[in-house]
């Protein structure tokens, strides 16, 4: 005899409305804030103080906004790239490595390839090279998956570590790109000033990268919704079997998706070195995990490139606030990861609410029943 069937039953519902989706997202965020409050509390700091410090630090002043947007730039680019890959059900966890390789490509151009070129030539070449390097780094796991069925979660992740060590190898003495005279510092030489991206005056926002990110978000939105390639991406993501029967080439689509996904993450790396550091630094210096945070940014944006614009801004603020609470309350940077994890938990739980509705039923007596 089987145990009694529970009284609560969940049923699938049709595509959730925009209102339901938004409500679930907001509720997930609020619940995550609530749960993390206990973590802070357990750590001996007042969660309200922490939250107000995060908010004031990131959105409470022009200075805060400036940094929030600056940090949102790499998140936006990586997030847009990831959203497209996830749409095709390719679990690209490798934005971090793709970003780093983009930074390497741009630095190579600025330091060695054409260091004396005028900005009008140098900067576009850096972006192009960054895109190519990031894209190439993304193509490797795509080929391994499409041809050899290698699990892309693992390959993309492992390639993050490999890229990180590669960057460190380049810049740490006696690495080949360690700047002359920088012996003890893990830096390359400074780029010539023609390789520096311009700022919005009075801020740290390197606007060419920002504009590029916004344009790509719109471009990707249109691509996914309005083009044949976008259609194929969606079909492959939702029903790979159907895609195969319809004669779509998994190989070709996944190659294109990962070239774009990795390439766009590479652009984020270009922005970091050309817009902020003006040299290549160790991996942790170039990116304190933007590629990982972008996974949540993409997911929170519901894999919609336009949604990613908003979520990247939110997480840019969270990163700035995270730095702030590190200084003010002595909380380690890792605290933000707790928050990231818990937000994802609640969003996943909320997903169920979006796609299913809870139905209350009286238990039926005896007999099997069809559901």
């Amino acid at each position, binding site marked *: 005899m*089987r145990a009694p069937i529970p009284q609560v039953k969940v049923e*699938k519902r049709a595509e959730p409305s925009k209102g339901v989706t938004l409500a679930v997202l907001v509720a997930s965020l609020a619940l995550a804030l609530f749960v993390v409050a206990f*973590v802070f509390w357990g*750590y001996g700091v007042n969660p309200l103080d922490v939250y107000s410090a995060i908010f004031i630090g990131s959105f409470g002043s022009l200075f805060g906004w400036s940094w929030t947007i600056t940090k949102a730039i790499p998140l936006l680019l990586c997030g847009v790239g990831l959203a497209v890959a996830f749409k095709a059900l390719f*679990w690209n*966890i490798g934005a971090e490595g793709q970003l780093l390789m983009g930074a390497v490509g741009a630095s190579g151009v600025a330091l060695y390839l054409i260091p004396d070129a005028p900005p009008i030539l140098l900067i576009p070449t850096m972006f192009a090279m960054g895109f190519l390097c990031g894209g190439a780094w993304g193509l490797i796991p795509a080929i*391994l998956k499409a041809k*050899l*069925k*290698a*699990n892309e*979660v*693992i*390959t993309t*992740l*492992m*390639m993050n*570590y*490999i890229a990180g*060590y*590669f960057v*460190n*190898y380049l810049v*740490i003495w006696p*690495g080949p790109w360690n700047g002359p005279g920088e012996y003890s510092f893990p830096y390359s030489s400074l780029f010539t000033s023609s390789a520096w991206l311009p700022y919005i005056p009075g801020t740290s926002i390197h606007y060419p990268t920002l504009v590029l990110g916004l344009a790509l978000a719109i471009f990707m939105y249109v691509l996914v919704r309005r083009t044949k390639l976008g259609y194929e991406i969606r079909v492959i993501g939702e029903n790979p079997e159907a895609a195969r029967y319809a004669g779509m080439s998994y190989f070709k689509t996944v190659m294109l998706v990962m070239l774009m996904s990795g390439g766009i993450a590479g652009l984020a790396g270009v922005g970091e070195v050309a817009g902020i550091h003006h040299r290549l630094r160790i991996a942790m210096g170039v990116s304190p995990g933007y590629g*990982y945070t972008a*996974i*949540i940014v993409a*997911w929170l944006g519901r894999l919609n490139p336009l949604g990613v614009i908003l979520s990247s801004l939110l997480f840019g603020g969270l990163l700035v606030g995270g730095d702030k609470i590190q200084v003010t309350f002595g*909380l*380690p*940077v*890792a*605290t*933000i*990861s*707790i*928050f*990231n*994890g*818990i937000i*994802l*938990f609640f969003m*996943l*739980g909320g*997903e*169920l609410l979006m796609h299913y509705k809870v139905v209350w039923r009286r238990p039926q007596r005896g007999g099997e029943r*069809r*559901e």
Partner: protein
Amino acid sequence: MSSPETVVASLLGNAVAAGTPLLFGTLGEIYAERSGVLNLGIEGMMAVGAVTAFGVTLATENVWVGVLAAATIGGLVALVHAFLSITLRANQVVSGLALTMFGLGLSGLLGKQYIGKPLPSSLVVKPIFIPLLRDIPILGRFLFQQDLLVYLSIALVLVLWFVLFKTRIGISVRSVGEDPATCDALGVDVYLTRYLCVLLGGALAGLAGAHLSVAFAPAWTEGMTAGRGWIVVGLTIFAMWRPRRALLGAYLFGGVEALQYTLQPLGFSPQLLGMLPYIFAVVVLLVGTRETIRKRLGAPAALGVPYARGEK
């Protein structure tokens, strides 16, 4: 430099020691995946296990309490993933990633107070010297001069292999991962079986972390798991979901890690050497995947697919 024989002996010995956390983790992931649940949260559970073992050992001055606490906490953290993926039928990839982020974050927060603190050597899980046997050339240091956790992990390989392939419980675990609907109809509790397997996976990931922080490299540093949790996910595929092959894979990996320590003093760039395990992980994944396909063994058919009674 010492004699070639000593170098080989210490390389093999270090390979086993470095492979042990991977072995614990892989054994756990094998059970979780066999039951149909992909848990990508190993890295996070391992980190939480490592910090727990270190902190509890310091506080109680008893390393075994620390080790036990690590396993317990690892299991508890895994329950979050179990609840999301089994009960709420959430996306297992994302849930596992979330677990990793959460675990890495939590371990960083909890571990901040332990950074730079050494574990008193009286509390470290130390190698046991088995008299006579350890004097056998090469093999002696390789096999008979390891710590208790290493022997525990080897014993677990045998136990978990036996349970998985020779007992009713094992049949349930495996069938639940292949065809949950039929199991359900036959009266096997799909949900309970999966919950228990994920719990076991978490506990073993916790033990893996404990071996790192109180035996292999007795200290706490943030990010000390260094991607081992991900390597475990790859090793599970390489092992083709078999405990005995996990032993082989874990020690191979341990060997690559040990090779780093052997080569570094010879003037190789530590950064380039640092890449080795990750490159090797990709290679191992490819080998495992190819063999799985060639032998038509395949992953558990229901791996990563949530089970909902009565839903197709």
